[in-house]
């Protein structure tokens, strides 16, 4: 006779150690190769969204600081551009290496400052940031190969404004191609996540990057707006919301300032009846719950073929209930903290609108920490294409399910959006996947995967998701002027 004992399958806490993190209490802004106090003395705390505790004080750049940084960037640019291209490359290779060497520290800080699970900052954000610097370092002495043997020149000083969802990775996406092309850059990190950009400034110092080549100017939206309106800027690259992108495009009207925008999305993730459904469910989860859904290309509109609707939703719900929400520093955490109180409120407003408009809401029952900003993974069914939760970007761990009968209807519904950033296709039929991929108005289409990024692969949107591309040779062209 055997005795069965019940086994508790829960995980023990597995927090990542933080003792190797060397954070200062205060970080000034970084310009002309040095950390400096803001000229108006303004320091603001940056908050850990999982605890609501301040991590460090950050110097916010004022108008005078922006002006000084611009002058230094302008002064540094001709020398930087005149370096032998391979020498310029060497600085970028150094930065890539230093990111790898400090990867663990950067991952922990990214997670503390932004709330994303350590598993993601460790396995995605930081390695990809290093990979981007490696990729574009190699371009520095091959620029004309990237533009069909044309003679090219850098643009000058570029202003780069990055969001809070992938703070270091977006900084890398912006800085690496800009510097490789011989521009100098002023980067404004997001208000809620300035820390890893400031650690990157330390890395620039450590790499002995010439002063003025990179400036990091923390601040809020006003700082970004002031940077955009500076007449000394030759190009603006912005990643963020469509609303702010629209303001920037309008602010630059009639000017020669080049512009690229990587904006919002409401991307369709399409599950066909012939898909490997268990694999698809993993992809759906990765598509929408990766980084708490704070992903511009998140698969937030789930389109399921009617014949497998019930099965997919049952499997998805089953899977969702096993998601571990909580301490982002815990290596077993799947869904971390919402980035800020402000973002949490936006999610709550849209989710309430979903319920009011008649969609059926299911939110997983899980314990949430007492402090910090949290939103449990949520699934909406009975969604109509006109509902706000099917139209507007929620930027949170909320997926809206729509259904379709035919491939044509799937394409029609997927394209029925003012956005066009990304899409997912789940099918085992190759010919169908290629046909659907070519019919979708989206800058990135993933078959049987989602949220995969690579420095060699262009990324960027159609329609109101923006214009210009980042990654690969296409990512060089926005930072170059063709001379002839």
């Amino acid at each position, binding site marked *: 006779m055997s005795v069965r004992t019940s086994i508790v399958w829960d995980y023990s806490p597995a927090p990542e150690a933080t003792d190797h993190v060397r954070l200062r209490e205060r970080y000034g802004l970084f310009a002309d190769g040095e950390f400096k106090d803001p000229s108006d003395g303004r320091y603001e705390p940056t908050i850990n969204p999982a605890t609501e505790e301040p991590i460090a004080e950050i110097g916010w750049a004022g108008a005078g600081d922006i002006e000084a940084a611009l002058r230094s960037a302008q002064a540094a640019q001709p020398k930087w551009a005149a370096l032998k291209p391979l020498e310029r490359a060497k600085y970028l290779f150094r930065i890539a290496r230093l990111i790898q060497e400090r990867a663990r520290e950067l991952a922990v800080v990214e997670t503390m400052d932004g709330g994303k699970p350590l598993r993601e900052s460790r396995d995605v954000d930081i390695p990809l940031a290093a990979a981007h610097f490696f990729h574009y370092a190699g371009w520095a002495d091959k620029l004309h190969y990237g533009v069909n043997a044309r003679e090219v020149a850098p643009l000058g000083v570029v202003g780069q404004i990055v969001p809070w969802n992938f703070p270091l990775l977006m900084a890398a996406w912006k800085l690496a191609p800009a510097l490789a092309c011989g521009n100098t850059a002023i980067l404004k990190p997001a208000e809620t996540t300035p820390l890893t950009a400031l650690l990157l400034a330390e890395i620039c110092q450590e790499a002995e990057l010439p002063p003025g080549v990179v400036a990091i100017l923390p601040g809020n939206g006003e700082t970004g707006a002031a940077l955009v309106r500076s007449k000394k800027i030759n190009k603006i690259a912005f990643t963020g919301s469509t609303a702010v992108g629209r303001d920037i495009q309008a602010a630059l*009207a009639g000017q020669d300032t080049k512009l690229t*925008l990587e904006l919002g999305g409401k991307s369709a993730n399409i599950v066909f009846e012939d898909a490997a459904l268990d694999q698809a469910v993993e992809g759906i989860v990765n598509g929408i719950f990766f980084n708490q859904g704070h992903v511009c290309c998140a698969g937030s509109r789930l389109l399921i073929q009617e014949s497998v609707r019930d099965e997919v939703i049952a499997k998805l719900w089953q899977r969702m209930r096993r998601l571990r929400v909580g301490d982002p520093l815990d290596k077993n955490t799947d869904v971390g903290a919402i980035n800020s109180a402000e973002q949490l409120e936006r999610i709550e407003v849209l989710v309430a609108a979903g319920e009011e408009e008649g969609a059926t809401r299911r939110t997983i029952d899980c314990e949430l920490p007492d402090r910090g900003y949290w939103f449990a993974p949520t699934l909406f069914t009975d969604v109509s294409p006109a509902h706000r939760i099917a139209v507007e970007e929620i930027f949170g761990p909320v997926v809206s399910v729509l259904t379709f009968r035919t491939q044509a209807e799937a394409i029609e519904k997927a394209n029925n959006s003012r956005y066009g950033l990304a899409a997912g296709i789940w099918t085992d039929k190759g010919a169908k996947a290629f046909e659907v991929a070519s019919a979708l108005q*989206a800058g990135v289409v993933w078959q049987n995967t989602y949220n995969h990024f*690579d420095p*060699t692969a262009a990324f960027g949107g159609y329609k109101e*998701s923006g214009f210009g591309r980042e990654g*690969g040779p296409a990512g060089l062209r926005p930072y170059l002027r063709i001379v002839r």
Partner: protein
Amino acid sequence: VSRLSVRKTYKLWIGGAFVRSESGRYDEFGGFNFPRASRKDVRDAVAAARKAAKPWAARTAYNRGQILYRAAEALESSRGRFADGDEVDAAVDVLLHYAGWTDKLHAVLGGVNPVAAPFLSFSLPEPTGVVGVVAPDAPPLLGLVAELAPALAAGNTVVAILSESDPLRGLDLAEALGVSDVPAGVVNLLSGRRGELAKALGAHRDLNAIVDAAGDADLATELDKLAAETIKRTRHSGAVNSYEHATGDALERLEAVTELKTAWHPVGA
């Protein structure tokens, strides 16, 4: 006995049909009446261009190249209609140049991405959709064709506002293209007052890009502001007045009306 000449009434070209302005308005140039298009005509033209966009983009690159070549043939054969033969010659050559781009753009702008994962990842150019062209006053034909041809070669459909000072050359082009193989709605040509029409075009929410060669700084600023409403792609340039000018920066012209799509397909399981 002297013969009374048959005077021509010029018309707009919208959705493959030669039509008067819905407004009933007209202006006069060189002894001919021509339509003064309205904002409603702009909307009709954008709707026609949108309807034609998907089938035009879906044609093979080879077929689109053939159609643009046929357009060049049609323009060459109507050379006598235009006062300035050199300008027609240059316009024909520009059409030929871009006819040859349709099946080369992918090789030049796209490629396979060697991603660090088991996927076949590639990036390919696609048309942005419906492109609005604001043609310069002069040269009235070449200046228009230089903006039309890249947009068409990249697979877009076009609504163009013609030269305001000499609109008949653009309307003549419509008649030449009208007997070529260019499908209905792929090119739509409107004559009238630029200030009125260009703004209506720029403000249209179903337009993907604006290519402005009018060379008017105030209008450019206005168009940029309107474009921001729906994040339209914009390109401003001066009037093209030579074949070299129209083709020397071909890649920038093509890229301005092109999207790059990156697809990831699994390799193995």
